[in-house]
């Protein structure tokens, strides 16, 4: 029985539903879209126009053949700046969620494996934290210090780890109740070691879904905070900063200054969410053929 369960678990892990994911039309579309965006923002700035070249002759120009997305109030090419901005925004998003994964993972482990009173206390704290609106929390963190990329990532992580903690805790507790863990504890092998060996396989899939979706939300949060001047320092282009500095131009008619950076965010988040949906659906036992 215990042997069955552990092999079952690790088989599930190895068979992470890549195939199903690629068959999922939307997820495939999302994956491709994201890939294109990532490649463009990594390599684009090397080949295209100089994102920092100001030019008094081309201030606030509408999109055209030479400037696909138009130019900003200093005459810089917005297409190049959106690509460059994507670099930073995606970096911040991924980095923040990695920190959140570690934070949430540790919190969930302690809560899930610790004594009942501690678990109760920690869950109470988690619920309370969840009742604080994310923007409020993040702004408080950001407003108490100088803006910076690292600080922003940490701030986003600090408001994003709760989902991970929940999943890890639940899985830990479920795992601790299974026969084979109980049996191995009874026979004297370390619970922690067991958890390390069996937790990851069980948890990989739901965790992946949550982390994927969180990256999308982190992108939105980055944009929001930077837009409010509480995120990335204003001189570094990120999608949020582009929107923040484009706002004034847009209010006097230069709509392209806010349309394109915003569309970039929406596309990236949609792509990420589609991948998340694909991961979730691939794990759904109710998934069906179409008749």
């Amino acid at each position, binding site marked *: 029985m215990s042997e069955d369960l552990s092999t079952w678990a690790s088989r599930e892990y190895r068979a992470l539903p890549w195939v199903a994911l690629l068959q999922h039309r939307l997820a495939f579309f999302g994956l491709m879209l994201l890939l294109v965006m990532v490649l463009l923002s990594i390599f684009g700035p090397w080949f295209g126009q100089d994102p920092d070249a100001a030019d008094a002759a081309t201030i606030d120009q509408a999109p055209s053949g030479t400037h696909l997305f138009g130019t900003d109030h200093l005459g810089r090419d917005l297409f190049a700046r959106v690509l460059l901005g994507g670099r930073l925004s995606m970096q911040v998003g991924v980095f923040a969620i990695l920190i959140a994964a570690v934070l949430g993972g540790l919190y969930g482990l302690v809560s899930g494996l610790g004594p009942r009173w501690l678990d109760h206390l920690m869950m109470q704290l988690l619920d309370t934290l969840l009742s604080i609106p994310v923007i409020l929390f993040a702004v408080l963190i950001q407003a108490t210090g100088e803006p910076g990329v690292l600080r922003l990532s940490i701030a986003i992580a600090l408001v994003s780890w709760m989902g991970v903690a929940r999943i890890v805790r639940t899985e830990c507790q479920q795992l601790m109740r299974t026969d084979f863990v109980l049996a191995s504890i009874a026979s004297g092998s370390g619970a922690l070691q067991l958890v390390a060996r069996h937790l990851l396989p069980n948890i990989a899939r739901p965790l992946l879904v949550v982390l994927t979706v969180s990256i999308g939300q982190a992108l939105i949060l980055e944009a929001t905070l930077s837009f409010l001047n509480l995120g990335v320092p204003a001189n570094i282009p990120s999608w949020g900063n582009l929107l923040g500095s484009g706002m004034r131009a847009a209010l006097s008619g230069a709509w392209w200054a806010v349309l394109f950076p915003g569309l970039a965010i929406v596309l990236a988040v949609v792509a990420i969410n589609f991948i998340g949906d694909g991961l979730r659906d691939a794990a759904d*036992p109710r*998934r*069906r*053929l*179409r*008749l």
Partner: protein
Amino acid sequence: MSISVIEIRGLCVDYALASGVLRAVDDVSFTLSRQEVLGIAGESGSGKSSIALALLGLLDSTDSRTRGSVDFDGQSLIGLDEAGWRGIRGRRIGAVFQSPRECFNPTMTIGQHFEDALREHFGLSRQLATTRTLEALERVRMPRAREVIGSYAFELSGGMCQRAALALALVLEPAVLIADEPTASLDLLAQVDIARLLAELRTELGLAMLVISHDLGLIGRLADRVAIMHKGRIVETGPTVQVFREPTDAYTRELLAACRPASTRSSMSGTGATA
């Protein structure tokens, strides 16, 4: 005028699974005559419930397909519209399903279920509905019927839920009753009770019944004729006494042997009985 109320020809039911298509019912044909009780027996997963659901047009069209013909009183039920079904379901063909408690809405009292059904089919007011409900509950020998009307399903025992479900089906005075595993989820004593009740109701009301069960004891006790199912097909059919006494099909013999130790005439035997 034919004496068959239900006539099914070439019924097939396919389900879509992640891995492919499952044919749960494979080319099944049978007829049910007036006042007759037909038993459908077979192991778990042989497609018995699927037949009942297909007959009532209750299969989900997004993940299943039904083929074949189903006639009720000479009228085809295939392709019936929503309004047409309303005159058939409940009113002409009543049904009780496998797990009786799950068949009641958890946010409504037992009485409210009767009220809805009586209002929609007979246009009865609340007071009249309550009277009818009481009668129906008493007919199925429900203990403390008056109290049960105001109770929720989770407050009743399994046997009481099954009685309430039966009463709810019978209160609309259908011509045919489909009973899918009417005793499966009950304890032994309640099983005997419900089996006895069904037998009594049958003689009292002159209903035609389709009794679906893996419990050969129940079928033997109630059914005039029996159809044995295996992997979606009917492998043998005939008068119950004859099929039980001289089975011609190998699978039927196997099935019967599995519950030989208890008498096939007793309602207490089941496929789960050990040798």
